[in-house]
């Protein structure tokens, strides 16, 4: 296969991130392991350069770039999601400063793996072909398996990594088998090719099984019920900055890729997959919220809450087919917007747990770092740290969907759209589920504001404060002025058709 240099432009933002990440790993050989300025500048520079490249693509270039025989396409949706992923990556890089210094993790490894995962996700949302989708999904997953287990001396972290690897491999099998079935039915890996073949009447049960298994693969990655069982253990065991990273970016990338597959490869069979997603969304919202109700660990609660939020995002996909049988692909825009709001509030909430970390005396005289995890770690801290507590309160209210935060608008836009398309039942279930969710989000606020302090030895990490502030700002900004963001999301979907 031949390609022109011009086609490389489609990969350029992802390549910048990838190169920065690889160089960061290499840097470990040359600079003393205690200095992190070189790593930070390299990776930060990579993220900023990639954002600039995406910005120029969005505002100056404007036409989508199809590259490598249409295996990759850098269109508005890819740019929108890549920017969200990069924003999250940038914030995680800053907050992982705490994890790496506190736990003695090599900067090169940690930053490098995050950058590699980010670049794989950027290419995933730009993938127009099952070949590229699969490769990027695997690169991303491998990086995450390692990141989850990167605190080598921590058994919880190791265990989480192995669990993730095993169950991830299991789900990958299905995904790959689904791709093979689709290939068998249509003779192509290209999404547009599959659509043409299906339109020609090749709609066999083989193709349907293939589509179903591919959806299972995505559902696993984004943690939808019943493919969510790995989420709580992995999220709890991983270093908190990794948890924050995967809970937001993988969800954005996975849902984005799923939207592309459904809209480009199988729009005419929305009667099949929309009903399936309907049940999946309902189960995910209900199970995620009810399980979160039971948690006493805030980190685990946030893990289940992230499952619930996957459910909300799926509502948009499930209601793409309105009750009077018309197909409304524009509906997917509300999922994109929801994921954007979710990115900042979740990142903020997890970062807050890192911020409130404290040192535990270890066995052999050394000390061990522990992020805030239980409710009692947060008891009564509002009086000591009013700013941080106010920000955490903001994130929690936003997660619960209270105006005027981003989370409220995300839900409002989502459910209003679903009702407009006639899907009243799922909207009612969703609103009721978020009603239940308030109970456990509020519990954290109660502990922060209405309890006597139990532990007061947290040693806040200054760079995490920056992340919290930025995430808080974004949560408020999107809540008060969502216009531009919603418009961008709608535009991303509009060009996809």
């Amino acid at each position, binding site marked *: 296969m031949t390609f022109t240099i011009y086609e490389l432009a489609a990969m350029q933002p992802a390549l910048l991130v990838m190169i920065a990440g690889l160089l960061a790993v290499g840097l470990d050989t040359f600079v003393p392991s205690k200095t992190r300025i070189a790593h930070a500048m390299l990776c930060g520079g990579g993220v900023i350069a990639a954002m600039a490249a995406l910005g120029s693509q969005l505002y100056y270039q404007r036409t989508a770039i199809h590259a490598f025989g249409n295996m990759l396409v850098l269109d508005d949706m890819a740019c929108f999601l890549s920017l969200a992923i990069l924003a999250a990556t940038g914030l995680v890089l800053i907050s992982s400063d705490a994890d790496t210094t506190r736990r003695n993790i090599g900067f090169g490894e940690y930053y490098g793996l995050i950058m590699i995962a980010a670049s794989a996700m950027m290419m995933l949302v730009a993938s127009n072909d099952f070949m590229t989708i699969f490769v990027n999904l695997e690169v991303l997953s491998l990086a995450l398996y390692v990141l989850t287990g990167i605190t080598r001396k921590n058994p919880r972290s190791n265990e989480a990594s192995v669990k993730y690897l095993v169950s991830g491999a299991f789900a990958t099998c299905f995904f790959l088998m689904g791709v093979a079935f689709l290939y068998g039915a249509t003779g192509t890996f290209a999404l547009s090719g599959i659509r043409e073949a299906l339109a020609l009447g090749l*709609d066999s049960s083989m193709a349907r099984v293939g589509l179903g298994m591919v959806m299972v693969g995505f559902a696993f990655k984004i943690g939808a019920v019943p493919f969510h069982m790995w989420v709580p253990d992995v999220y709890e065991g991983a270093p908190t900055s990794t948890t924050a990273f995967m809970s937001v970016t993988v969800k954005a990338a996975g849902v984005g890729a799923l939207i592309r597959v459904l809209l480009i490869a199988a729009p005419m069979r929305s009667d099949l997959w929309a009903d399936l997603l309907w049940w999946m969304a309902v189960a995910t919202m209900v199970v995620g919220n009810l399980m979160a109700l039971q948690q006493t660990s805030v980190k685990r609660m946030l893990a289940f809450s992230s499952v619930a939020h996957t459910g909300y995002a799926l509502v948009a996909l499930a209601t793409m087919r309105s009750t009077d049988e018309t197909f409304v692909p524009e509906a997917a825009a509300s999922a994109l917007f929801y994921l954007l709001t979710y990115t900042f509030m979740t990142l903020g909430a997890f970062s807050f747990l890192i911020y409130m970390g404290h040192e535990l005396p270890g066995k052999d005289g050394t000390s061990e770092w522990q992020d805030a995890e239980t409710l009692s770690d947060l008891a009564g801290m509002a009086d000591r740290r009013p700013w941080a507590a106010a920000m955490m309160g903001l994130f929690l209210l936003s997660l619960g969907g209270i105006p005027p935060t981003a989370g409220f608008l995300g839900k409002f836009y989502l459910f209003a759209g679903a009702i407009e398309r006639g899907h009243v039942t799922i909207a009612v279930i969703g609103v009721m589920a978020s009603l239940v969710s308030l109970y456990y989000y509020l519990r954290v606020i109660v502990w922060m504001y209405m309890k006597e302090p139990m532990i007061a030895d947290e040693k806040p990490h200054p760079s995490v404060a920056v992340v919290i502030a930025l995430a808080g700002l974004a949560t408020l900004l999107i809540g008060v002025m969502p216009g531009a963001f919603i418009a961008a999301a709608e535009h991303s979907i509009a060009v996809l058709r």
Partner: protein
Amino acid sequence: MEIESSLYLIPLLPLVGFLVNGLLGNQLPKWLVAVIACTGPFIAFLLSVQALQALATHPEGLHQAMFSWISTGTLNVPFGLQVDALTAIMLMNVTGIGTAIHLYSYGYMHADPSFSRFMAYLNLFLAAMLMLVMGDNLLLLFVGWEGVGLCSYLLIGFWYQDFANVDAGRKAFIVNRIGDFAFLIGAFTLYSLTGTLEWHGMEQAVAALDLNAMVVSGPMTGMPIMVALMIAGLCLFGGATGKSAQIPLYVWLPDAMAGPTPVSALIHAATMVTAGIYLLGRMDFLFVLLPAVMGVIALVAACTALLSGLIAIAQNDIKKVLAYSTVSQLGFMFAGMATGFFHTGLFHVVTHAFFKALLFLGAGAVIVAMHHEQDIRKMGGLWKDLKGVSILFIIGSLALAGVPPFAGFYSKDAILAAVYYQAASPGASPEWMVIFGMLVFTAGLTAFYTTRLVVLTFFGKPADEHRHLHEVHWTMMAVLAFLAALSALAGVLGLGTWLDTFTHHVWSPPAVEVNEALEHTAHYVAMGSSTAVVVLGIGAGLFLYLSESRREALDRWTKGSGARVYGMASHKFFVDEFYEAFIVNPIGWLAKLLWGVVDRIVIDSGIVEGSALSVSGFSAALRHTQVGAVSAATTSTLVGVIVVVLWLVLHG
């Protein structure tokens, strides 16, 4: 116009106060915190007065468009503030009484270690409440609606050392969310009918609807438009029952009394709880089209008024009595709104804010004097030691009881007259007469329990002869005197008539025809019957509670043969227990069940063990890392895959 372009300052100033006090208050001296906290609301009050005056020359209302909040292809919501006659009245109430209560709070709370946090919450509440009444669309109202709910929650749980308070706060929040759920459904429904959320746009769109037609698009396709509007109206009223404490969602308000007393006065009596009334007034164009819904509202309101009036008789906590009386008076306001004579409900909102704030703040003064004792059986004879507070409290009580010429008499009378007018209009549905009867009876009950409260608190023998009363701070007395003057004089000075003319052009005309003769009859019937029941109620109260021996006899009766009847009322008719058993517990069970199923059954059971064999290659290697959890994950995935594949193959 100067004021029109600075409307945004009205909610912004308290918000600034919140930010300063909330984030820096710990480092500032208390007097400075108080100055910051009181200045914002006071300037907002002055601006509101200006806005009110400006309405004389701008009867169509003031409007300041700020920016486009949400603008997409399908959904366009502006961010703008408006002041019309209805909002102006609410503004006067919120900022005027709000400022007074901020001042009082300095006296009441200045010794509290978290004083700055308290003042910050109060400021935030005010900002949210102002947003609620000033927003120019339903969604912006909802922002304020949620904001006041949040502040109410934070303030109820303010003294969190007592766990019951935290629980009460959470109860308030959750119950309100149930109301909000109905609110949102109503808002969505209305939006899909009218395509807008702005007041003016909605009013025009609703007026343009052909009520006999069917809905042609959206989720309610094929449904008669009238039915769709009724769903919207009922759901919005459902939202109002949450915030304004009506059946079935009133249960949170009495528990909310756990918060500091200024909070009870400001949020749970004078302002926030009237948000539901405001909503009805704001959506008048919708409700006048729906006589059936109005009937339901009136019936719910009358039942709430009666039920909570009965409960109030049997309460012994001074704040609980006032809380149930608030629920009861809110019922009156809703009944007034439901007649279609919206100004009567609004009038009662205003006078009730005066006298109920006075009563709560007076109760606060008593509670401070009694060293935080709230049980009226342990008070008694306070008249001798607290002359000033007693006189002011009694003025408030007379207004609440509806004794002429105090303010409460005029507003209650206006509502009763409006209800009677409805009932006696030709072709009126018979329920209105029942509603009228219930409300008149409740007016008598009000007089009775108010008398009981006053007699037990201020007269008779002191429960403890050697008590040492705490001094009442001068800022508290000043605020009490101010509110007492308003409660005594507002009616006489013709506030009701002024309100009627001032707000007349905002309301959609009521559905019933105007009949002046009937109007006069209604007026006399209402006045006559309410005066009669008030005299009866006060007489019975004095007769039963003023004499020591009769009170003891009454005590014996409530413990003996009357225990069953009295117990029903003192246990609030077991509504809380009912909700606990039929709503709260089932949700808890469901969550526990799910937890149990996943954690114990799935992971430990044979299903997993069986499937673990199928991945035995892994499980052998991973035996020590809780293989159960891993195989649970794979089992769940496997089950999911089978379901998905079967479904897709069999479906099409």
